[in-house]
């Protein structure tokens, strides 16, 4: 994108003037190089989101913004029900509540060096990954509804994990307002064999090493030091979320005109928050959030079992669990007044500031851990929410590196075996059922996560705390 069409209001903040049907301006947080690298579809999509009824303040894009569906990936927008605001199935997307959770292990790299091959194999054997894998847990109708109503809390009550985990999950492990009755039988059927599965594509489970600390005090509070070993799990609500997205996107796309909403792009499918379909979607979407939280909780349990088999003295405790594709009701101060808003984050992470009431006590002084996934080769970052982030984009930050090339192009350039061998040469063990899947996810197919995170830090969206590199990656 040509930065000449934007107004630079700060080093890493650019404004798209309000034109045409836009109800608010657009704002992109990025440095100039990232702006130049963004697809022309990104400003188009930011502008389209800005036309939706009830949007408040601006249509935002994070530093990792790229061409998405309706909303850009990395898009954040908040809507006010009192102002005729909408909820958008397109704005949340198919992989509802896809997110990252990071576990501390109490181990250092020295502890795992001698057993890392065994650990990789045991994790790969125990974590169902890739297309066609199934979980060991099969839910009947009443247990499915109980899971959809109370998420990770349900999982812990079933013996998957520890009660202490729940304080370290957004919504304390259970999204309020979930309505399993609004989830179709088809969506529930699609989930039947998928509880406790990783999925495929960009989803992964990584054993990671802390290689750099940027903010020692916050890192201490998070329990992170150089050479510590942590585990990060990236996955979402599986087939249930995909099916809910599919069904409500269709219903909202067809119904928008009747609701008096002019959609500039069908993928922005939405409905008034206070309409019957809007309320049904919110109930179903929150159930899908619970499905994702339960899924990551079950995977945590499987991870603990794997570590216990190889490294009995490891104690895996939860650092935090964040979700990327959600719409949440939150109170934000706009023009000096608190307002209840429906905040859509499409490929963006919530980044609550220090002292926020929704944070566990452990993070009151530091702000919320913001967990950013990178690629298999480049590594990941942990940031923290700041007082400034709450004022910029409804307490939101980036979520990952973002792809720089298509899957087809990646498979044309790299073979899966070569990617696995190259990474093994750098001490990174890949375990995946699909070599083509590995090739499609080659590190070179992703943007530089460091540039994205630096821009988020400099923009004030979140502050860098630690950098992690993979030791073992189980890829779906």
């Amino acid at each position, binding site marked *: 994108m040509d930065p000449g069409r934007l107004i630079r209001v700060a080093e890493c903040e650019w404004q798209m003037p309000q034109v045409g049907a836009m109800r608010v301006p657009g704002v992109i947080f990025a440095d100039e190089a990232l702006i130049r690298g963004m697809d022309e579809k990104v400003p188009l999509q930011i502008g389209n989101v800005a036309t939706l009824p009830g949007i408040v303040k601006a249509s935002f894009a994070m530093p990792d913004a790229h*061409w998405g*569906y*309706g909303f850009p990936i990395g898009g954040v927008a908040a809507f006010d029900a009192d102002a005729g605001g909408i909820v958008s199935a397109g704005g949340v997307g*198919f992989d509802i509540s896809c997110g990252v959770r990071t576990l501390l292990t109490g181990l250092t790299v020295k502890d795992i060096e001698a057993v890392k091959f065994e650990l990789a194999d045991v994790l790969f054997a125990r974590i169902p990954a890739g*297309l066609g894998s199934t979980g060991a847990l099969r839910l009947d109708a009443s247990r499915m509804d109980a899971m959809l109503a109370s998420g990770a809390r349900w999982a812990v009550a079933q013996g998957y994990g520890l009660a202490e985990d729940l304080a370290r999950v957004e919504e304390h492990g259970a999204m309020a307002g979930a309505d399993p009755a609004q989830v179709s039988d088809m969506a529930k059927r699609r989930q039947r*064999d998928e509880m406790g599965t990783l999925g495929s*594509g960009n989803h992964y489970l990584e054993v990671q090493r802390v290689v750099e600390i940027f903010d020692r005090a916050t890192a201490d509070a998070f329990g992170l030091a150089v050479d510590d070993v942590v585990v990060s799990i990236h996955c979402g609500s599986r087939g249930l979320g995909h099916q809910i997205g599919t069904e409500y996107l269709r219903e909202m796309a067809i119904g928008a005109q009747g609701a008096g909403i002019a959609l500039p792009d069908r993928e922005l499918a939405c409905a008034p928050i206070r309409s019957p379909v809007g309320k049904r979607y919110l109930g179903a979407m929150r159930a899908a959030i619970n499905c994702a939280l339960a899924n990551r909780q079950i995977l945590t349990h499987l991870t603990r079992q794997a570590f216990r088999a190889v490294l009995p003295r490891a104690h895996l405790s939860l650092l935090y669990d964040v979700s990327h594709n959600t719409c949440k009701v939150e109170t934000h101060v706009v023009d000096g007044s608190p307002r209840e808003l429906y905040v859509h984050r499409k490929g963006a992470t919530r980044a609550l500031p220090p002292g926020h009431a929704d944070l566990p006590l452990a993070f009151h002084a530091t702000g919320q851990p913001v967990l950013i996934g990178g690629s298999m080769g480049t590594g990941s970052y942990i940031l923290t929410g700041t007082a400034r982030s709450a004022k910029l984009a409804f307490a939101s930050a980036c979520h990952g590196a973002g792809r720089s090339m298509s*899957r087809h192009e990646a498979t044309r350039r790299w073979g899966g075996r070569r990617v696995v061998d190259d990474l093994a040469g750098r001490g990174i063990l890949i375990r995946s059922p699909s070599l*083509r899947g590995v090739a499609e996810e080659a590190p070179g197919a992703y943007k530089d996560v460091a540039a994205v995170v630096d821009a988020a830090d400099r923009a004030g969206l979140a502050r860098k705390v630690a950098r992690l590199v993979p030791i073992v990656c189980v890829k779906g």
Partner: protein
Amino acid sequence: MSWEHFAHEADIGVRGRGATLAGAFEEAAIALTAVVTDPRRVAPTLRVDVRCAAPNVEILFVDWLNALIYEMATRRMLFGRFAVTIDANALRAEAWGEPLDRIRHEPAVEVKGATYTALAVGKAADGAWEAQCVVDV
């Protein structure tokens, strides 16, 4: 009759071309399978019937792909051959395939859903029918 993929930054587009609208839908379904595996590796040993109806032909196309995605997910099958008939925005189809074999099919990635992005159904300049959209993986 042909199919191809087209580039989307995060995901992948599927496009089918045929002498008829139904033919374009059949080819696009092969392109959908090709996101996951080489369609030539899928043996047509089992038949699944699919029915869809929609307010217009573009939504019908998305419904068709989403119906296949659902059948692939819940039956744990892949499909390699399709016979589609379309009448007044209503579709009836037979999809032929086999259970997913993780060794033989080497599935690359799961398709989450067909989207309305880059969605187009119509006649190309050369008179052939084309149907396309981006799928989320």
